[in-house]
């Protein structure tokens, strides 16, 4: 068996991971799913450092740790920490790193996770640094794609919604460019994927195209990845009202899709996916959320060096 290449490593950005690293993590997630090793992390302590609230992500990490027999200390928002008193992130993390075996960190500032990793030898897992990275989200997306389609190579996948500001879409597009996939970027022109992401994908020789409407590409897809369009991204509300319905998926649009096509969404959804779709075999977003627990269990076990 391959040596654990993630032991003691920080999980900061998908840019740090090779295709082999990604596939390795996904395999270990499968292993965790099959064996359910509920004492694996007993005696290990996780620092759950949420400098901004994110209940969903925090509960997912804390459940992952406790389900493996580990323990958790931490805080759910920064109003109770010394960051409020003007302490630098560097100092805060240096101290917390002395207490725990692993730090899971969420912070509103871009690049804060990389900075935190410089402050301590304790491994840092980035649970979202501003609009930059959220690597376990991307890993769970990849796990879900692989689980639902058996393989990542060979699939046709559309990313839909706010592709300009959405870090989920950026990170997923970059990670997918390690694989032999066909990408469709579907967004209003003002919210299309930024050039540096498109260039990255291009450099990896992955085929992609831009679209303004879903219906043109729906029949070709294996995965439809929907994301939120936030009203505050628009300078004028007329424009928002126009696009919010264009990027809304309804049951009647699913007539011509492949039977194996699956719909993903990082959740929470607002109105991008009509609830009537939930009952169809195409809806896969709740399984996706559930996979978050598995992937986080795998990442925690790997970084803590408790699994090969």
């Amino acid at each position, binding site marked *: 068996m391959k040596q654990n290449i993630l032991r003691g490593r920080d999980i900061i*950005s998908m*840019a740090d991971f090779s295709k082999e690293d990604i596939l390795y993590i996904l395999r270990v997630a499968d292993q965790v799913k099959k064996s359910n090793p509920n004492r694996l992390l007993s005696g290990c302590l996780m620092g759950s450092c949420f400098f901004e609230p994110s209940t969903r992500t925090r509960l997912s990490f804390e459940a992952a740790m406790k389900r493996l027999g580990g323990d958790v200390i931490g805080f759910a928002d920064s109003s109770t920490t010394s960051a409020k008193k003007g302490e*630098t*992130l*560097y100092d805060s993390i240096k101290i917390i790193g002395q207490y725990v075996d692993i730090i899971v960190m969420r912070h*509103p*500032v*871009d*690049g*804060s996770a*990389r*900075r935190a990793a410089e402050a301590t030898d304790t491994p840092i897992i980035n649970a979202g*640094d*501003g*609009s*930059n*990275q959220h690597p376990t989200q991307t890993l769970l997306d990849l796990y879900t794609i692989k689980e639902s389609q058996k393989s990542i190579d060979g699939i046709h996948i559309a990313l839909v919604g706010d592709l300009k500001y959405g870090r989920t879409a950026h990170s997923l597009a970059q990670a997918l460019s390690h694989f032999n996939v066909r990408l469709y970027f579907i967004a209003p022109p003002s919210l299309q994927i930024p050039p*540096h992401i498109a260039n990255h994908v291009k*450099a990896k020789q992955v085929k992609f195209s831009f679209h303004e409407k879903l219906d043109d590409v729906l029949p070709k897809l294996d995965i439809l990845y929907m994301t939120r369009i936030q009203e505050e991204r628009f300078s004028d509300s007329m424009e928002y009202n126009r696009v919010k319905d264009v990027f809304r998926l309804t049951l009647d649009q699913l007539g011509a899709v492949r039977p194996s096509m699956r719909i993903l969404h990082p959740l929470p959804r607002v109105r991008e996916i009509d609830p009537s779709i939930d009952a169809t075999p195409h809806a896969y977003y709740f399984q996706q959320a559930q996979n978050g627990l598995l992937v986080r269990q795998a990442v925690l076990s790997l970084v803590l060096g408790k699994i090969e």
Partner: protein
Amino acid sequence: MPSKTLSVAAIKNGTVIDHIPQGTALRILALLNLTSYPKIATVGLNLPSQSMKRKDLIKLEDREITQEEASQIAVFAPKATMAIIRNYAVIKKIPLRIPDTVEHVFLCHNQNCVTNKDRMSSKFRIIQTGSSIHLECVYCERMYSQDQMKNYIHDV
């Protein structure tokens, strides 16, 4: 006027930075924090050049550019030549090498970047694709073209 007689006076001691892309000399002066240099600095703009049609040139009296500064200059002027002058003679040519990273030179434009929030140095990875150079913030991962890097850090 022919270029030979136009060229700026020779210096006794200091540095000559030649073959700077047209329009870049002033940025290099700003980068090196030389806009208020107390000694003689001669700047030539839009000089005729055989290899590059038009070029900029900088001569700094009594100032020897370090290897580190030379790397920073290379980010903007990859084909520049730099020579250290002592007693009117070139005693050393500084080889230009585009560095892998530049630290504590440029400011990240992203106001929400940790380098603009915490007390710390900036750091950019230099990404070279063909003839174009981009700088990627090591922290927030934003990507900038070299033309976008206009804010420099100068410690007081």
